[in-house]
């Protein structure tokens, strides 16, 4: 499974209700799920919102490990977060933090699973157009978000690649020593992406 699918998900062609829904209602759904979780911060509410966010994902016909599954690296992070808050006497906060993260992840995945990336970019460009008079460049903004969607899972996958290479060479499994190659890989990827953008004239506008 490549890192893109593992973390954020990729567009899956389909004809479900969510596929046919426009971008405006999808973003509204995203806000309706995430804002209460962020503002109210009630653990019971957040757990309910996680379930509500997960249900449409489970009905898309996407394998469960891709729809609501969490990459092990993120799972470890969430467990550590919850454990920290539990240990410091605030389990409710731990549940809220982890739950809000899952709400954001699932709500994002619903958009990405059911929206072709060009449509997503078009919607972002349209949303940014009113800000043109303030100096905003809508096309560049849309492109930046599209590149971000493609890049974040790549960098996450780079960590797995470095660990696999270390194991293959019988080297130390120290997480810290894996960090430098991951950073170098990420910087190299950023430079290559920048070169590709420049070469294709994207961002010249």
């Amino acid at each position, binding site marked *: 499974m490549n890192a893109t699918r593992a973390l954020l998900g990729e567009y899956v062609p389909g004809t479900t209700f969510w596929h046919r829904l426009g971008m405006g209602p999808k973003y509204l759904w995203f806000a309706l799920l995430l804002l209460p979780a962020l503002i109210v911060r009630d653990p019971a509410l957040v757990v309910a919102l996680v379930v509500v966010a997960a249900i449409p994902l489970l009905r898309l016909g996407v394998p469960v490990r891709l729809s609501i599954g969490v990459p092990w690296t993120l799972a470890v992070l969430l467990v550590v977060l919850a454990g920290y808050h539990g240990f410091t006497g605030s389990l409710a906060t731990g549940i809220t933090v982890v739950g809000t993260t899952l709400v954001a992840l699932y709500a994002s995945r619903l958009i990405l699973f059911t929206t072709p990336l*060009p449509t997503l970019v078009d919607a972002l460009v349209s949303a940014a157009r009113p800000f043109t008079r303030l100096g905003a460049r809508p096309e560049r903004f849309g492109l930046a978000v599209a590149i971000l969607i493609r890049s974040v899972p790549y960098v996450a996958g780079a960590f797995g690649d470095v660990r696999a290479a270390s194991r293959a060479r019988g080297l130390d499994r120290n997480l810290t020593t894996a960090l430098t190659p991951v950073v170098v890989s990420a910087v190299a990827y950023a430079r290559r*992406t920048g070169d590709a953008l420049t070469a*294709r004239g994207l961002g010249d506008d």
Partner: protein
Amino acid sequence: MIRLVDVRVDVPVPAPTGGRWTSKTLLQDVTCELPERRIAFIGANGSGKSTLLRLLNGLMPVTGGRVEVDGLDPATNGKAVRAHVGFVFTDPLSQLLMPTPIEDVELSLRRVVPQREQRRARALELLAERGLDRVAEQSIYDLSGGERQLVALTAVLAVNPGILVADEPTTLLDLGNRLRLRALLDALPQQVVVSTHDLDLAASADRVLVVAGGRIVADGSPQESIVFYEASQR
């Protein structure tokens, strides 16, 4: 017409002794005009081939001398030059910015086809011309190396550049895909400038230049230049 006049490219590098930075010369005394339809640059790894190609669309600035592409300087008219010069990288994954082939070709077409539906239809048409319509919606990570390179080429050619520059386009391809890409490049109406280790690809060019140590050390017919290059590697 591509013209290079007394081009020099220096880049800062850490000094071997550590601490300070020094300068490394990647190209020097490069002067040539490139009017031929098919041009190939050959040379050993690190000879300066890729650096030279990157000058042609402004990816690399010159330290001295000047570069002209149809009268335009890539350093000061980068946007205009890049609209005219398409660039294909060695590794197509470096170049494919979108998750699927059709989305990547659509990205190229955003500048020239404003309507989403028309853009999508045109992207599918371009992919179909290269036999890639069946993989149009697949993840680029699920494509073979040859398919990725063809998608990258399709995305670059979608905006119909006048010149195509390809940096070692066949290096990562197996024999079958190398032959296929070679035939595709040969059929293009654009001027094509390639750097390559594939001497069969170079042999099909109208003119071959050999780069060594940052200089052009041979310049002539494919036969002459390839013989020179092979002799220099023994």
